[in-house]
């Protein structure tokens, strides 16, 4: 119960903070739009379903890394010390994951909209694609939140964020590409159930690890 109350407060704090520093969010949105536009100009006329799929997820990965890397560095360290005295580390990491999940959901829907607008709609099985999008948002937000927490403890935060997260995010990303790839080429769900189960397993494993490991990062 305590955890639930802590979570609501922390989550509201995150949202308020984001709305207060509107330029950060706007920056990510513009980053998303311009990346999609660059790929649109570079790939006009030559795009196939496979390229569409790979480009979509690569762009979403870069947007996610950009959006989530700030999670633990936007507030000053003294404030973190203050949170440490009033709440549990589990609540902190869960609230960050949930907040980043919301952010990723919004970003992935927008990415999809811009992609369909510029590159054309190639999705044949929307239900499957949306499933991939939701599980992808959850996976990316939880892996990257954890990596952001690790990178925030070191200097040279931003490039560390990329090199630490890319190899780790691969199992998730490749499974996602496989699922959404078949959402682009077939109408059927069969054959994807196993992959969706894999995605769920990865998500559960990552959240569990974050829950167990974050307290060690938190304490200094």
């Amino acid at each position: 119960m305590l955890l639930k109350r802590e979570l609501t407060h922390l989550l509201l704090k995150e949202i308020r903070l984001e709305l207060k520093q509107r330029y950060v969010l706007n920056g990510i949105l513009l980053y998303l739009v311009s990346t999609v536009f660059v790929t649109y100009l570079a790939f006009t006329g030559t795009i196939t379903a496979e390229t569409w799929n790979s480009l979509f997820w690569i762009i979403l990965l870069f947007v996610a890394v950009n959006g989530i890397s700030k999670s633990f560095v936007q507030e000053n360290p003294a404030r973190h010390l203050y949170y440490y005295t009033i709440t549990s580390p589990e609540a902190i990491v869960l609230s960050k994951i949930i907040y980043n999940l919301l952010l990723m959901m919004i970003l992935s829907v927008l990415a999809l909209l811009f992609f369909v607008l510029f590159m054309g709609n190639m999705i044949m099985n929307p239900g499957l694609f949306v499933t991939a999008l939701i599980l992808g948002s959850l996976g990316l937000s939880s892996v990257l939140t954890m990596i952001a927490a690790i990178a925030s403890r070191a200097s040279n935060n931003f490039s560390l964020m990329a090199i630490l997260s890319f190899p780790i995010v691969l199992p998730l990303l490749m499974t996602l590409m496989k699922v959404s790839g078949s959402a682009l080429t077939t109408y059927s769900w069969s054959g994807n159930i196993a992959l969706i189960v894999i995605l769920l397993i990865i998500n559960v494993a990552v959240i569990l690890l974050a829950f167990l490991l974050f307290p060690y990062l938190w304490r200094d």
Partner: protein
Amino acid sequence: MLKQYWWKLLSFLLLLYAVTYGFYVSIPETMILQTMRNLFYHVGMWFGMFTMLTVSFIYSLRYLKGFREENDRIAIEAVNVGLMFGFLGIFTGMVWANFTWGAPWVKDPKLNGAAVGLVVYLAYIILRSSVEDRHKRAKVSAVYNIFAFVLWIIFVMILPRLAGDSLHPATGNNSSPVLPMQLDPSMRTVFYPAMIGWILLGTWILQVRIRVSKLKQKLEEY
């Protein structure tokens, strides 16, 4: 003395046996001809890498349990030895692949899994070097090590499923002569001793590295 060091002697003898008798033992006639003997050396690198990374994972867990600096030292040195094995595995594999598949690097789930493993642990080393404080470094890198190892294992396990057929045996065709269960009896007499020999050699290198690292630290403090 022999009681304490028997495994080093064993490692030496097993590998001496592997690098001599490995070239002499009769192998079945296959398309890949004499290159099949690389099995004794190339696969040993992967066994070594995997063992070392597992050791590192275990010692990172132990570090988080009691924050003893000794465990952190073992974790990082095991990663160093694991990376050495990893690179040797890639090189021995490239030589072999160039002959059997026609190119040093082909798209194959096992190769990708190994390459990602190397990238993960190179990132681990960079992470370590970018944290100044010793205790903080140990803690942060232990957390990353545990997180990364679990996800890497998941990656290696699901890769064959995602990528379809592998050129390596064991996933696609189960009649390959270089699979351990299909291995020719005469080759088995070299394969298993060689694997044990490589793992023991890795442990030996690890022990020496830990000792060097301890001495270095003592010199610094002196």
